[in-house]
């Protein structure tokens, strides 16, 4: 629903404000072309990967304070800090004068889900550029009021001041008179060469609330007279099963229980406390129908069976013929595991339903998607649903399309009570899981004897994917996607499909280099599609000390990748492998990332280190164990995530060779991707065994050592 004048005036209420809307657009796919002005919502450039015109709102109030409304959410990446920061700097105001309203569907524009590492680079950058325009706009407006030429005025510290007489001054609040400027304010030039803006250390705006336990996350929100609700969880993939029988009477008899009832394939329970609901579901003791589908126990078998070609994502030259004529040709298969996002705060929502209206407080990355889900579930119009996005206790993709808001709304409607729905780990891991998909990748490359890639084919059994043409210069390529009928449900998870493909491509790259007797780093440099990878490789090589001979059973590996709108990354890892226990330990990590303008070095550094540790977890131990019928991962004790003692010394660097246009390119997921492959390559160099399947658990490493 686009925001209209009526909503705007409602928001203004009785107070007097000066309001702007402006659009911010993503043109980050454009890198090599001449700058093009954003014009009427169209960037006329074929290199643009996708283009979305977002709207944002900004109010200037009579007291000189500013309120900005964005439909995005802060999920720990520091968006609130970054936006406050940009606006307070952009309008030269003290931070306490800037208030942000995030993720409330009743008062924020629908500016897309907070995913794909794009909030800072699209919304943040949009605000920053819009502030330039707003300053000019305010100067012009003040000139009209003062009856002087705008050239004689200057914007300074939240006021418009005469250049030759500082006593002639209009504070921005004095311009507030209830005017609504609905005209789109286009940032002046999307590809300007203005000075990159870097903030090194602004602290988190939520810091004091976080450390005192007073930040109100969804589960902490108390709407008054609220009960808890939940659904029964099956060990089987939910679309393959349903409850055959259950003891509803016993469940309803649990003290504090408000209602127990069958809902679709499952059953719901609502009670006065979290504990009463869990006890009711235990007493319910549902018997789930055993799935009828025949069952293959290994994931690769499940993925390959019945897979069909869905699309070709990359094609150039004649790869089949060139592979046949290549002097060196290597074919391999790589397999990655199912994985789970595991935010520390499980999916959570609080719902209130009155007649055909619903309000849901939710932990979500996408309040406007949640609104659609709730409206559909309750069969009410979207405009009757208000989603209020709360601070998010981690999401990592699982809260983009979270069912918690509509489930909570259903529970509220069924009981006529306000209901808090807090996923248990069992429900999060299993009953309602949307996993990072396991992927099988068949990759074949042909190389010349002096180490130039000639041809490559990649077949990915994967929902979404890309090849390696953005990373390596290969004249003859073909990358195809096959759809796999694996019944475990897939969802988004940090790094999306890039992690799996990069593992295959970058492991394979090392195998090729080794077969040719060329150093893997040198081999990469000979075949780069984008020259800016070169300085990144040099940077990580220097940080990790690539040239030295590592100790026995230590190894150093490197990997590179691209992600999203021209984010480039290189990671080097040093590992040690204990040949007796099979335990891999990451001794050091070095990462270099070419991501354009850095907005807030503080949050960026923290996110980047965290993302590299995600890579470590995915490489070494994270795995949801499933087969064609069910999941065997039920709780946190079954799923190992990185912890304090896993953390190696880490060094990172940010470069900006790829683009000089002053545009931030995002970095939320990028560092995960090459870290996985760098660790796998380091293990291979440490013990001389190449692993084609993740994660590199002690059992798998020992098996590999035995077979070598």
């Amino acid at each position: 629903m686009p925001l209209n004048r009526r909503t705007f005036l409602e928001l203004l209420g009785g107070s007097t404000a000066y309001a702007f809307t402006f659009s911010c657009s993503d043109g980050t796919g454009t890198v090599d072309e001449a700058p093009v002005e954003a014009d009427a919502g169209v960037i006329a450039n074929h290199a643009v990967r996708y283009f979305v015109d977002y709207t944002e709102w900004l109010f200037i109030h009579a007291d000189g304070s500013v309120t900005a409304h964005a439909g995005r959410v802060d999920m720990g990446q520091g968006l609130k800090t970054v936006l406050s920061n940009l606006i307070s700097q952009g309008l030269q105001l003290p931070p306490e004068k800037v208030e942000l309203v995030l993720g409330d569907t009743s008062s924020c524009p629908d500016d897309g889900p907070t995913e794909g590492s794009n909030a800072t680079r699209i919304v943040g950058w949009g605000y920053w550029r819009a502030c330039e325009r707003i300053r000019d706009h305010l100067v012009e407006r003040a000139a009209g009021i003062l009856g002087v030429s705008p050239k004689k005025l200057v914007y300074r510290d939240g006021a418009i001041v005469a250049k030759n007489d500082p006593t002639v001054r209009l504070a921005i609040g004095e311009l507030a008179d209830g005017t609504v400027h609905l005209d789109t304010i286009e940032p002046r030039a999307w590809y300007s060469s203005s000075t990159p803006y870097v903030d090194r250390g602004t602290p988190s705006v939520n810091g004091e609330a976080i450390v005192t336990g007073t930040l109100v996350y969804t589960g902490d929100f108390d709407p008054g007279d609220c009960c808890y609700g939940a659904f029964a969880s099956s060990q089987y993939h939910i679309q393959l099963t349903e409850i055959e029988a259950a003891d509803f009477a016993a469940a309803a008899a649990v003290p504090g229980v408000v209602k127990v009832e069958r809902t679709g394939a499952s059953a719901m329970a609502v009670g006065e406390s979290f504990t009463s609901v869990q006890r009711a579901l235990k007493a319910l003791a549902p018997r789930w129908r055993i799935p009828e589908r025949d069952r293959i126990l290994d994931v690769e078998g499940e993925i390959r069976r019945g897979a069909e070609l869905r699309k070709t994502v990359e094609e150039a030259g004649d790869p089949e013929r060139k592979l046949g004529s290549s002097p060196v040709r290597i074919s391999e298969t790589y397999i990655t595991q199912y994985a789970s996002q595991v935010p520390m705060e499980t999916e959570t929502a609080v719902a209130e339903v009155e007649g055909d209206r619903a309000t849901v407080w939710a932990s979500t990355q996408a309040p406007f998607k949640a609104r659609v889900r709730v409206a559909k579930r309750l069969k009410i119009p979207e405009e009757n649903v208000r989603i209020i996005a709360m601070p998010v206790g981690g999401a990592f993709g699982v809260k983009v399309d979270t069912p918690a808001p509509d489930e909570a709304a259903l529970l509220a409607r069924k009981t006529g009570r306000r209901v808090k729905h807090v996923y248990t780990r069992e429900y999060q891991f299993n009953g309602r899981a949307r996993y990072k998909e396991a992927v099988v990748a068949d990759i074949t490359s042909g190389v010349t004897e002096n180490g130039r890639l000639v041809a490559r084919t990649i077949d990915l059994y994967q929902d979404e994917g890309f090849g390696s043409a953005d990373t390596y210069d290969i004249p003859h390529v073909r990358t195809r996607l096959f759809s796999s009928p694996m019944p475990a449900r897939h969802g988004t998870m940090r790094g999306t499909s890039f992690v799996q493909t990069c593992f295959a491509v970058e492991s394979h790259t090392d195998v090729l280099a080794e077969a040719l007797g060329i150093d893997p780093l040198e081999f990469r440099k000979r075949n780069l599609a984008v020259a800016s990878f070169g300085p990144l490789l040099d940077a990580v090589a220097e940080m990790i000390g690539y040239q030295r001979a590592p100790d026995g059973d230590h190894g150093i590996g490197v990997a590179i990748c691209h992600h999203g709108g021209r984010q480039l990354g290189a990671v080097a890892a040093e590992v040690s492998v204990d040949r007796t226990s099979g335990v891999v330990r990451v001794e050091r990590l070095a990462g270099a990332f070419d991501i354009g303008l850095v907005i807030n070095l503080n949050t960026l550094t923290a996110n980047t280190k965290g993302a590299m540790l995600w890579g470590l977890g995915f490489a070494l131990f994270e795995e949801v164990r499933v087969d064609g019928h069910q999941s065997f991962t039920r709780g946190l004790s079954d799923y190992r995530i990185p912890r304090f003692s896993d953390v190696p010394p880490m060094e990172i660097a940010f470069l900006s060779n790829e683009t000089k246009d002053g545009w931030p390119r995002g970095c939320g997921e990028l560092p995960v991707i090459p870290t996985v492959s760098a660790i796998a390559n380091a293990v291979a160099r440490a013990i001389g065994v190449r692993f084609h399947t993740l994660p590199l658990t002690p059992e798998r490493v020992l098996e590999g050592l035995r077979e070598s």
Partner: protein
Amino acid sequence: MARAEKITLKVNGEPHSLTIDPGEPLLWVLRDQLKLTGTKFGCGEGECGACSVLINGEVFRSCMVTVGELAADDQIVTIEGLGRPGNLSELQRAFVDHTAFGCGYCTPGMIVTAEALLRSNPHPSRDEIVSAMDDNLCRCASYPAIVEAVASVAGGVKRED
């Protein structure tokens, strides 16, 4: 099913009389009865540490402790008992200064655990910090900054020799 009993809990220095099922985990009593929501639900199986509280100075997982197991004079301290906005403890201040969090959901448990460590060992080495905190999970993986924050309060890290 257990029935409600009168139970007295001393939380952050204040006694609270409650009529409650003694089998109820302390976590939910803190959150829902006493409205101390700084103590978080993370897993309900004692694996993550988000619900850590101090009981007589020792760290416990409040999801694994039932209120029936507690005595009226047991001193329970939650994150709210360590400092308030505008009046942060030294450790809380250090977490802010080091941005030792991403989403912040695990942070109360981290601070409570670090508080117990520093009370028993005011000058821990980095290894001792890692070992004392290792059962507290942070999915944003803010671990390096957390170690730095705790070490800064430890008044400089003890030499390893």
